[in-house]
Structure formats: C-alpha cells, structure tokens
C-alpha cells in the first residue's frame, strides 16, 4: 500500500471553519470519484471530528486544528485530525455512544457517527497535550491509477 496523494492543512478552531474543513477534504478526494453516499459519510465524519476539536479540545480558547489526508493506491483514504488542546482523560468512556461532557445540546454521537460512517477509527489522546483521530475508509467503485 503506497500513498499516492497527500493533503495537509491547518486552521483556527472557529466554528465557521467546520464547513471549510469538510468541504476541503471533500474537494481533495473528488479525484477518486466517490459515490454521493461515500462523500457524504466522509464529510460527516470530518465534521464530527473537527467539532470535537473546537468544542472539547479547545473549550475556552482558540487553537490550531491540523488535518492530514492521504490517498493510497488501494483506494484507501486516511484522514488524521489533530488538536493540541486539553486532551481526553478517558478515551474509552468518550467513545461510548451518548456520552458527552458538553451541556450545549450535543447529542454525544460524534464518535458513534465516525465509527459507523468510516471503516476504522483510532483515537489517541493525552491530557494537556492534545487529541488525534485517525479515520480510514476504502472506496470501492474506482481505482486511483485509472485517472
């Protein structure tokens, strides 16, 4: 499995950037000719992860959110979304559906959505250092080297 294309971008943790982030990732992977539903799954997962950085990673201040997207020659998309925020004390608990520490009407479904819309989700976090979420999804319809 080789990486055939890669995107790196970073931006301030303002909620207006949620749509920017998912639109940018979506534009980058369009070359793979994803189905509408694959594209929608990926946009939704990115939106959840970026919202987590904004709401939980940097709760009372603005910080930088880093996104790295890799496309492999096996049509796999690997998306890493990272913050240098406060971190998650208990990742296992955070991954439970409906668990939320926020009182701002969050459904507590962020990780559940990422896990069900992507093939694989990995969360690494350290208190005071930050959190990174790595998500993978393989597209089935086309092959990168065809285009």
């Amino acid at each position, binding site marked *: 499995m080789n990486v055939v294309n890669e995107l790196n971008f970073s931006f301030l943790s303002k*909620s*207006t950037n*949620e*749509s920017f982030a*998912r639109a940018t990732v979506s534009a980058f992977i369009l070359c793979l000719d994803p189905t*509408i*539903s694959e594209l*929608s*799954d990926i*946009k*939704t997962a990115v*939106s*959840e992860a970026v*919202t987590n950085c*904004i*709401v939980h990673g940097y709760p009372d201040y603005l910080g930088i959110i880093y996104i790295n997207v890799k496309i492999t020659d096996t049509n796999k998309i690997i998306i890493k979304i990272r913050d240098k925020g406060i971190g998650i004390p208990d990742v296992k608990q955070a991954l439970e559906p409906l668990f939320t520490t926020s009182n*701002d*009407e*969050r*459904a507590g*479904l*962020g990780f*559940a*959505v990422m896990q*069900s*819309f992507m093939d694989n989700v990995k969360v690494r976090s350290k208190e005071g250092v930050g959190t990174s979420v790595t998500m993978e999804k393989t597209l089935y319809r086309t092959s990168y080297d065809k285009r």
Partner: protein
Amino acid sequence: MVVETDFTDNILTAKLYGEIDHHKASSIRNKIDSQTESLRPKELHLDFTGVSFMDSSGIGLIMGRYRQVSLIGGTLKVVNVPKSLQKIMSLSGIDSLGVLK
C-alpha cells in the same frame, strides 16, 4: 437564511435550509425556541426538505426541540427528511421518539 418559520392552525413549521452543523445549529435553535415560547404551538414541525448536509448537531437540535416543545405540552414532528440524511437519523435512534414522519 437557514431557517424560515410559519405559524398556521396552531402549527409552527420551521423549514431548515443548507448545511446543519455545530456552527449553524445555535442560530437555528434560538430562532425556533423564541417562536415556540411566544406562539406556544400545539405542534412543531421541523421540515428538512432543504437540508443538504447534517452531522450529529442536527440530532442534538431535534432532541432539544423535542424537550422544548414537550415542556409546553406540544408535540414535535420531523418531516420531509431527504434520503441522504436517513443514515444519520437511524443511527441516532431518533425514530424511537416517534417524531419521524
């Protein structure tokens, strides 16, 4: 404009447009809640016809309005959900509230 409201026959209809995410949800919520409080409708309809994208913030929005309208003795209906949003709706288990029409 992300939400347009109409009040007819004691039914408050909120038509939602565009993309619903964490950023957009708060202004939608404020507009619907202020109308719900002043009009005290028997039914609140959230119309998703014009929604092109939604993440779990949309689920939070529905659950919050469900609570809000229940407090004043009204009921919530979620109508015209596009096919593209059905996956996240069913994942959320929101059907169990009996609000999806």
